[in-house]
């Protein structure tokens, strides 16, 4: 295929996934939460079980007035949603969905490194929003976001390093090429640490201290309305897609499946990602919010030691079998 065309198709696919998958997760969240709580959820927009609810929400957001408070740091305030959102788009390009070189947006050689580094940038958007809003509650939310990032980035790094050790490479496609089924029990502790730490970085319940709505209004996003607020929401759901996709690729074997790995590899990736996204929603319905000090304690006294133990285990097994 023509090179330019090839690149264009890849960009288009990644961009389409970036726009569609978060909406699918969002709509699923509406419905799953509703049914877990004995409600129906959205039923009207679009006719069939309210499938177009988020589209309608989007139209509403685009029509709302964009208020920038008088005291706010205007430019930083306006740019923050873009900074929060775009890193997740860039991470999507590096996630392989199927076997072979064709099934990934770009073959990023230092994949694990790249995705962790770029995902870290997303939190900057919340910090910018928290600081630039000139609102006490936003500032508190921003500071809590910072604390959460500091606490949970580390176990995430360590858990990912464990996979890199197991595979002997930092390329995401390389990790999948080296994968064998017994990696799942071998890396299960790392997988849990990675997933929990990722949830915390996305500020999803039960780790939604930075946006605790009953306490500090809506944290760093208090002053946002309309399109900019919608972009923050989109960033959260894109974050869920990215986190679940990464957990799938790093710990659950991505496109490997019991059967049909050749033709249907992408389906396995999507299926595993979807199951994890369901778990994310499930956790939101099931657990109350952690208090700020409990949150920090969980990271430093549980997740970091667990991740270090996983690295030790990975190292011993890897050297023993090679």
């Amino acid at each position, binding site marked *: 295929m023509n090179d330019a065309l090839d690149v264009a198709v890849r960009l288009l696919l990644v*961009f389409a996934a970036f726009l569609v998958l978060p909406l699918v997760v969002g709509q699923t969240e509406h419905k799953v939460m509703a049914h877990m709580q004995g409600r129906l959820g959205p039923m009207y927009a679009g006719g069939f079980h309210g499938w177009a609810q988020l589209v309608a929400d989007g139209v509403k957001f*685009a029509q709302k007035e964009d*208020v920038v408070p008088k005291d706010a740091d205007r430019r930083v305030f306006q740019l923050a949603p873009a900074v929060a959102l775009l890193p997740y788009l860039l991470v999507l390009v590096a996630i392989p969905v199927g076997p072979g070189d064709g099934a990934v947006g770009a073959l990023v050689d230092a994949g694990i490194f790249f995705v962790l580094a770029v995902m870290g940038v997303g939190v900057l958007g919340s910090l910018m929003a928290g600081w630039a809003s000139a609102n*006490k509650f936003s500032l508190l939310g921003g500071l809590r976001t910072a604390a959460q990032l500091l606490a949970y980035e*580390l176990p995430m790094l360590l858990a990912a390093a464990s996979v890199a*050790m197991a595979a002997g490479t930092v390329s995401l496609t390389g990790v999948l090429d080296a994968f064998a089924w017994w990696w799942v029990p071998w890396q299960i502790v790392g997988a849990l640490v990675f997933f929990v730490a990722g949830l915390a970085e996305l500020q999803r319940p039960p780790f939604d201290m930075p946006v605790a709505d009953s306490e500090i209004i809506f944290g760093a996003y208090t002053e946002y309305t309309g*399109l900019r607020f919608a972009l923050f929401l989109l960033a959260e759901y894109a974050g869920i897609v990215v986190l679940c996709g990464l957990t799938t690729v790093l710990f659950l074997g991505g496109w490997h499946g019991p059967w049909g790995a050749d033709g249907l590899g992408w389906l396995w990736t999507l299926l595993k990602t979807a199951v994890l996204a369901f778990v994310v929603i499930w956790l939101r319905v099931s657990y109350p919010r952690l208090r700020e000090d409990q949150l920090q304690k969980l990271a430093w006294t549980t997740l970091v030691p667990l991740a270090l133990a996983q690295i030790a285990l990975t190292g011993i097994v890897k050297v023993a079998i090679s």
Partner: protein
Amino acid sequence: MREPTVIAADYFDTYSVVGLLAVVGVLFVAVAFGAGRLLRPVVPTPEKLLTYECGVDPVGEGWAHTQVRYYVYAFLYVIFAVDSIFLFPWATVFAAPGYGATTLVEMFVFLGFLAVGLLYAYKKGVLAWT
């Protein structure tokens, strides 16, 4: 086993798609903001531009004093994160033929340092909310 020499320009070629996607993303945000500007009403009033604090008029300055209770964590994080970055290059070679047991011992030395550091911080009470 020697890797074939990689020319830097070729290596960064793989990032060109990433760069293009970044451009697409920036365009997306620009178009969204531009379209939003055309679609939405602009009716500012002094009350609307006031800082929002639960509906009552804001008290004092927007940037308030707050005690950053976890600044020690920040130091800990920087130390640990910089350490763990070095795990990645090491991870790709540690089990290669000719390393094996030696690198494994090195790993335990490294983990030992981290664990002692963490334990020290714990004993000092740094990890508790003050």
